[in-house]
């Protein structure tokens, strides 16, 4: 998180850290990402965090044994004190497209239920898209994102910006959980900001942008899969509207380089289908 603040323990109790190792890569790679706890067994995250890097066109999830979930974590140095779970199921969205990150959403099922505490709690799901009690994020409304990703734009490795979750270099990431509030960007402005570039980016209806025109505050590498949450006015509850997905090749927090988030409200029925069968 660039330009954010340290999140005190218990502020974002649904935030989980995903430690991932891909032995299929040569050499083997390790990285981390984030996710949002939905229930005792299920974690919502971005599909690209769990996408095995194979050389053919097929989308293959990582083997479950290569993923570890840390819950109730505040400082990454205290992993051994946090609640740790393995994973027994990885569900990438069937339409996830690794080339443009369309449908960048995935579910993880923990191998055994987690016990809720003050530091470990679930986040709400928004109403499905089209039911306006919990509208999809309206432009200019503020959301909150947290993560242990890169916190200084100058330290970001430009060669990996298209894959913000890939690195876990301790020199560039935050030791304590950071959070930032970001406004939702008009969809047209989002599309325009990326259309003007030399590379052709495709902003779909399954994505939305959040951030400031002038930059300075943003999510960054290592924050992928984390929840972009917004608060319900009535019940003061937080629901996950977006998942940290990707950003432009420039440094995180650069001017007019908005972060791109998976629009979760488009996938409520897909999520509930899997949660309901559990």
């Amino acid at each position, binding site marked *: 998180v660039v330009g954010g603040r340290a999140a005190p323990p218990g502020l974002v109790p649904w935030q989980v850290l995903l430690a991932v190792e891909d032995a299929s890569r040569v050499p083997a790679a390790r990285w981390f990402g984030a996710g949002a706890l939905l229930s005792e067994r299920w974690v919502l995250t971005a599909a690209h965090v769990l996408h095995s890097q194979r050389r053919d066109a097929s989308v293959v999830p990582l083997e479950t044994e290569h993923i570890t979930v840390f819950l109730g974590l505040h400082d990454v140095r205290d992993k051994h004190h946090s609640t740790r779970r393995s994973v027994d199921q990885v569900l990438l969205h069937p339409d996830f497209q690794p080339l443009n990150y369309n449908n960048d959403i995935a579910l993880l099922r923990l191998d055994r239920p987690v016990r809720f505490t003050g530091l470990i709690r*679930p986040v709400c*799901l928004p109403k499905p898209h089209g039911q306006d009690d919990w509208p999809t994020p309206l432009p200019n409304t503020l959301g909150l994102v947290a993560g242990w990703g890169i916190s200084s734009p100058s330290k970001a490795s430009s060669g990996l910006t298209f894959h913000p979750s890939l690195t876990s270099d301790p020199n560039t990431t935050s030791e304590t959980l950071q959070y930032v509030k970001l406004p939702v960007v008009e969809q047209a402005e989002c599309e325009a900001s990326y259309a003007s570039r030399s590379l052709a980016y495709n902003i779909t209806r399954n994505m939305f942008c959040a951030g400031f025109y002038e930059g300075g505050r943003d999510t960054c590498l290592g924050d992928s899969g984390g929840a972009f949450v917004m608060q319900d006015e009535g019940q003061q*509850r937080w629901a996950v509207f977006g998942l940290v997905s990707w950003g432009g090749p420039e440094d995180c927090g650069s001017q007019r380089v908005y972060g791109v988030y998976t629009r979760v409200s488009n996938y409520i029925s897909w999520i509930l289908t899997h949660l309901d069968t559990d």
Partner: protein
Amino acid sequence: LSSASEMYGTVRSPNFPEAYPRDTELRWNISVPRGYHVQLYFTHFDLEPSYLCEYDFVKVEVEEVVLGLFCGREESDTEQVPGMGALSSSNNLLSLLFHSDFSDQENHAGFLAHYAAVDVDECQERSDEEQLCDHFCHNFIGGYYCSCRYGYLLHTDNRTCRVECSGGVYRQRSGGFSSVDHPLPYPKSSDCSYSIQVEEGLVVELLFNPTFDVEDHPDLPCPYDYVQVIAGGKELGRYCGGRSPGRVVTKSHLVLVNFHTDDSGDNLGWSLTYTTTGSQCPVLLSPANGLLNPIQSEYSFRDHVLVTCLPGYKLRKGEEYLDHYQLDCQKDGSWSSDVPQCQMVDCGNPEVPPLARVVFGSHDNSTRFGATMQLSCEGDAFQLQPNITSSYNCSEGGIWTNSELGTDLPTCIPVCGLPSRPLAQQQRR
């Protein structure tokens, strides 16, 4: 003396048809097989007549019983001639005696007679009192045989009909039985045994019904037919006659009733009922807040009493709490156990789900029958799942029960989207 044993034959006086000799006496003993009798008829008869056949005569006898004394040629007031009628013996023997005295004034020719064996219908000849067969009599040429009604067996005397009536065992606590065919006459030549075998601890009492008719003798004690009662290896009595023995106390749980009949008589038999009584146990008192079932004025061996408690109470037996308990009246007249007491049900402290708290409905935090308690979750960040509002009651079964969840307990789950630490409010600029 002549003997004849053929099935038929002729007997004639000496010199017949010439005049018979004087001073002559001849006897013919005719015998035919058993089952026949001898029929004799005269085809010619001419003996010197005399008053009461004093001079010459023919005498026909059966075992010294005179069937006829004949003389002369024609019937007179004092003399008989055989005539055309036939003489029949009552059995298979007939004797004919010819006698002539010293004079024969007119040279009488004597007699010519024929005899034949004729089948006896034994079944018809006997009077009702002298029935050859107990049930059915069947005549055949030269004899007869007996048979019995269905269910009866012909005794080895080939005359009476007996029954197989031994081996009956009565194990119920009460019952009854009677002589075969009672109140019709009982079978002859039979030995019936009826065994009453009830559990040890019970004693049998017999009650002979008033209708009692067993062949007896005016002077001798039950020489013909009798009912014999044996209990505990001892003979309690031997009964016959027309007076019922009435009640017979055996003081045993094993009783044998034998019924012996001889080959005669036509008596109506007997019937009895038996009951058993056990050792008496003391009358029980219901425990406080409890019930006994059944309630009886007295209890005896093998009686059971079930002890239960009123709703909200349970029986305490040692360290155990029971819904019901059975007491058995034992053969020695004692109960198998003391009556357990009823204690009010105590649900105990409820199992409190993690992150939940309990508030009892009474000031003394009672957990006994009828007590109530309410579950809630600690803090606002947790809620009951399912979100019940009603309280739990300590049910009569000793289990905390909720009208919505039954005996299940809710769990406290966090409300989604609620941080445990609120986000600092921003200042307006």
